[in-house]
């Protein structure tokens, strides 16, 4: 069903045509329930996003779940300290597929202003796959809404078969991510190479 014009034309005649893929992705993207947890000041903006002025409910994501078992989306809202990182990865592992991650704010995507500190992880993407990164310190609620829309577009664009299909439809895909162990000087390992290959800087 590639012909959108034909679809609209049929719709005018009272005929609804769709594909399983479209229906499936529509269902997935329209009820992304985030997990209810915040790590630092970004969480305050996250809370503001859910309230009446910004109204996250418009995107079907108003139901914040206090249990990882019932959540689809993890919003890493704030500084991930090295002491907290194992717990964040463990919570992510406990979430059921399909699951998504939004890294919210400078700290969550890179360590932010605390990057060179001894106690702050340089970005949660070192341990778990992140779908959308939002910069900002903290990002405004509009930015979080933008991240939601980006995530929905990403879900909509996914095919259910073939290369690049969602992880939960891929029997070979890695479902559990190793939880880092607190070591004597740093977390061990310092990153998960399967998730985070060292980026190459091009200048």
């Amino acid at each position, binding site marked *: 069903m590639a012909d959108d014009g034909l679809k609209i034309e049929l719709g005018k005649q009272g005929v609804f045509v769709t594909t399983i893929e479209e229906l499936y992705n529509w269902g997935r993207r329209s009820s992304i329930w985030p997990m209810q947890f915040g790590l630092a000041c970004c969480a305050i903006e996250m809370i503001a996003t859910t309230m009446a002025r910004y109204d996250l409910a418009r995107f079907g994501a108003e139901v914040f779940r206090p249990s990882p078992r019932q959540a689809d989306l993890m919003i890493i809202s704030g500084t991930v300290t090295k002491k907290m990182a194992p717990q964040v990865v463990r919570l992510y592992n406990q979430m059921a597929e399909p699951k998504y991650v939004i890294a919210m704010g400078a700290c969550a995507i890179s360590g932010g202003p605390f990057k060179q500190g001894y106690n702050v992880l340089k970005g949660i993407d070192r341990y778990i796959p992140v779908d959308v990164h939002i910069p900002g310190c903290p990002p405004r609620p509009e930015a979080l809404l933008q991240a939601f829309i980006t995530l929905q577009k990403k879900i909509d664009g996914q095919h259910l078969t073939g290369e690049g299909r969602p992880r939960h439809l891929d029997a070979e895909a890695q479902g559990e991510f190793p939880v880092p162990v607190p070591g004597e000087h740093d977390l061990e390992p310092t990153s998960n190479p399967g998730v985070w290959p060292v980026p190459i*800087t091009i200048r």
Partner: protein
Amino acid sequence: MKTVEEIEAAIEAAVPGAGVEIVSNPSVSLQHSLRLAPSHAFAVATFLRDDAELSLDFLSNATGVDWPEKEIAEKVKVTRTVTKTVEGVEQQVEETVEETKKRVVPGCLEAVYHLFSVAKGHGPVVIRMKTANRTDQVNLPSLTPVWRSAEFQEREIFDLFGIVFTGHPDLRRLLMWDEFKDHPMRRDYVEPDDFEYEPTAHDEVLKRAEAHRARLAAATPVQEGAGA
């Protein structure tokens, strides 16, 4: 409020042999402090809290200071007798020469407490204690039994500086995890080498990222002729 000298005299009167030393602060603030001998610190602290006139009932802040071992080079004038030939005659002449002498000031760790009185509305009185060295004799008496608010702050000092407070009810690390071995606020703390990827355009950071890459290259030898 009493001056530091008066407080020192009051302490000496109440706790004989307390060994309190005044550390003067020549800066504008003139915030002089009292260095307590660890052996008498608990008695002195109790006195400071319970004395009717001082009644320092509120500990607002406790922190640590790291004093690493320091080598000080000083120029000293030394007079010595030298045999010289002056106007054809050999003479014993006294000569003054400048010499650079080096002495090593041993390092230590220090805990600093800022005390106020809510009842009297005065303060701060700054008291401090020094450990014997930075490695094995790092014990200081805990002041938590005197001021309860010292509990978390002493745990933080223990965590970040490595001062062991004897008599503390629950001395565990506060910010870092239990398995952590270092003390991050010490001057000689070595940060973990996690500079794999640094898009930051700060020269210092880029240098460290460069050093990280060099170390990695040295650790993994290039497999030459592996395919041959």
